[in-house]
């Protein structure tokens, strides 16, 4: 397996280029940076780093053991760990989360439609 190909970054420049460090993207997509930032913001305040790390390790191990794991995404493991911890501690509810995902999705679809139709609501 070649790791060199893993480090090839799409050649995007200009205002839409993602922030780079040493010619490499720090985050593969904006949502990854938000997932990262949330955990750092919550760590030491709402949960201990050691706990998050232990849960992340379990989450990664679960993915590695699964038959239908699909494609590897580090930050998906990270996000899943955060989500599970928040739900388990009662800091967010699974029901509200599902509803909010739908709302956010609807809002974005709505904005998308209006963007393309050239009209503002």
């Amino acid at each position: 397996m070649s790791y060199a190909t893993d480090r090839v970054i799409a050649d995007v420049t200009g205002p839409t280029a993602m922030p780079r460090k040493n010619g490499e993207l720090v985050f593969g997509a904006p949502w990854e940076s938000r997932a990262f930032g949330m955990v750092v913001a919550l760590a030491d305040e709402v949960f201990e780093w050691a706990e998050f790390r232990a849960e992340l390790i379990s989450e990664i191990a679960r993915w590695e053991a699964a038959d239908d794991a699909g494609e590897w995404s580090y930050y998906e493991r990270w996000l899943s760990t955060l989500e599970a911890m928040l739900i388990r501690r009662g800091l967010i509810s699974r029901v509200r989360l599902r509803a909010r995902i739908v709302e956010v999705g609807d809002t974005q679809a709505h904005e998308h439609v209006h963007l393309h139709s050239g009209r503002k609501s």
Partner: protein
Amino acid sequence: MLGKDQTYLALRTKAIESLLIETGLITEESVDSIVRTYEQDIGPMRGAEVVARAWTDPEYKARLLENGVDAVNEVTGGGIDPKEIVVVENTDSVHNIVVCTLCSCYPWDVLGLPPSWYKAPAYRSRVVCEPRAVLREFGVVLDPKVEIRVWDSSSEVRYLVLPQRPVGTDGKSVGELAELVCRDALIGAGLVKA
């Protein structure tokens, strides 16, 4: 099982963030600030500076190998959450490479965030079993007599490699030397070239 589709992951992330903001557990600004710090301020430059200092100051190098945290703090100005940092030195007979086999433990304070490949299952498992082959894939071909040591970083200890100073750099300043030090060499996945 929630899907892996990027759009869905983005929605999930946004939903979680909005709920956390509403309950007052975080603010959007605090997340922005953290992201900005890791995208712009923290990176391998600190690690490079540490290495350049070690190459030019034998007493600093001795302190670095003895107590990584304190010596690193001399360069970074301290004030950073100190996880234990242990510095391992490359020599003509030993090459060191670092991994976190369980997740992605990495010395953020001196190197910033780890690259994707460091966190991927393939690297994490293969570098322990076949480090020489993995190094070859990184373009590092070592003499068969060179011993390879693989260090497993954890929540308690983060390893940092002190690469060898390349030949032909005698006249260079600390700043110029720091510029030669690439991030991969600090993980042990690369060598520093003059």
